[in-house]
């Protein structure tokens, strides 16, 4: 290996990229008043989406709240809950370390492992323990051949409710009108996430990734009155008392996965995927220099959950989703 080889990853930035970036910077002259950056919020939005299927309690701030209190939960439907900018900043702000506060109540039964690469979909299927489904259609110019498959092993965690700590969280968020049932204290929810498979394609400057996993399961002692507990979670997410009540009463909490969506950066809509309901998330905001416009489709079929995300148009992503088999 000569010295030149050490520099071989260097390249000239594409002119078009440089031009767009340079042109976009003055548009950003008004700094964000508070909170995470636009990119940070976008990342949060993506992370929230991925949490649905990657199924982790690592950042339980928004995930655990709405769904960790179910006696047996399987994903059949996805429903978006708008999380406004204030709520996003409040949950992610430095004053309230929600991940830490909730994280202390999480006991890992099976810790998440790094994803492992596999040479072929068949090898990944064997590792995951189920047959991987793939799209039969790709946008023009994209190669259907799978260049990259990873499998993340199963994960399990138990969350033990601590009403005192939960009360502190509510107080920190300025929620004073919620009474926590004493019977909740010490009760536990167990989350089990089966192996998750990721298939990724790259074309030009764009990427698209299909994540799939058998539905995560959450168990709780039977007989838990779910809507009032879900209502508490929804309040933490920023819904008003009345909205949280109405929402909590209208949802079947044993089959519906609530996806908190920071609506200042992500638009969402219900879509139909292969005859069932799905959720389409699209990044919003002024056009910037990034190639990543970012969209994601979430759906469930035959006890398996899917997330298809990428820098394609939402129409192309939906088209792909319709052909996953």
């Amino acid at each position, binding site marked *: *290996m000569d010295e030149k*080889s*050490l*520099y*071989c*990853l*260097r*390249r*000239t*930035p*594409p002119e078009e*990229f*440089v031009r767009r*970036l*340079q042109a*976009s*910077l003055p548009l*950003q*002259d008004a*700094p964000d008043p508070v909170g995470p*950056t636009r*990119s*940070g919020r976008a*990342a949060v939005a*993506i*992370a929230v989406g*991925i*949490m649905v299927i*990657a199924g*982790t309690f*690592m*950042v339980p701030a928004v995930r655990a709240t709405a769904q960790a209190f179910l006696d047996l939960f399987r994903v059949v439907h996805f429903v978006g809950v708008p999380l406004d900018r204030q709520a996003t900043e409040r949950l992610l702000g430095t004053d309230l370390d929600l991940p830490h506060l909730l994280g202390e109540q999480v006991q890992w039964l099976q810790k998440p492992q*790094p*994803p492992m*690469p596999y040479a072929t979909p068949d090898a990944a299927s064997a590792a995951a323990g189920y047959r991987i489904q793939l799209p039969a259609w790709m946008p023009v110019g994209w190669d259907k051949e799978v*260049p*990259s498959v*990873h499998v*993340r092993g199963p994960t399990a965690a138990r969350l033990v409710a601590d009403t005192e700590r939960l009360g502190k969280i509510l107080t920190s968020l300025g929620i004073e009108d919620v009474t926590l049932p004493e019977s909740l204290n010490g009760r536990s929810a167990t989350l089990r996430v089966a192996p998750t498979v*990721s298939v*990724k394609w*790259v074309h*030009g*400057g*764009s*990427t698209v*990734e299909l994540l799939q996993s058998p539905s995560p399961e959450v168990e709780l002692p039977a007989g838990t009155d779910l809507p009032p507990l879900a209502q508490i979670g929804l309040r933490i997410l920023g819904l008003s008392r009345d909205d949280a009540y109405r929402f909590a009463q209208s949802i079947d909490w044993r089959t519906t996965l609530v996806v908190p969506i920071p609506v200042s950066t992500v638009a969402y809509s219900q879509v139909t995927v292969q005859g069932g309901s799905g959720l389409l998330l699209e990044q919003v905001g002024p056009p*910037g*220099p*990034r*190639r*990543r416009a970012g969209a994601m489709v979430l759906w469930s079929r035959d006890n398996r959950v899917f997330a298809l995300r990428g*820098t394609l148009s939402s129409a192309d992503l939906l088209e792909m989703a319709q052909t996953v088999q």
Partner: protein
Amino acid sequence: MGLDAESINPMMWRSSATELDWNAVFAEQLPRVYNYFCYRVNNEADVQELTSRTLEKAWRARQSYRPERASVATWVLRIARNVAIDHLRLVREYAPLEEATETVGEDGPELEQESASDRARLQSLIRVLPAREQELLALKYGAGANNREIAGVTGLSESNVGTILHRTVQLLRDRW
């Protein structure tokens, strides 16, 4: 840390000692940041995304830049480093590692094939190194930073940077 030659480079300054010439900063630092990320992530989309994020942060923080604290290059590379740390943490926690290799070249077919092979080889060797060594390589060979700048970015001593880089390059050569 004292001033270095770059921080007092008049090209970096416009009319006063507190106003950055952004055009010069952009022209000089963008290729360095872009190539820093070429060594940190594998695909072009991520390289552009993270480069954009870094330059946006620098742009918005340009009025708080203090030349007595760090050179412009060190300041921008520190931002890039933090952007990389955030990104890699997110990737580690939420998404599978990206293995796709996308390269851009202007050589002829044979040379291009050869250099593409070298790139893939180097990438695979770098990916298995500890995070600190990966970062130092990215700063040295991607961003083209000297050991003093790398020390300023990472907080390591200059001699430590030199020692680690020497050892790491030797390791790469052994494995090549």
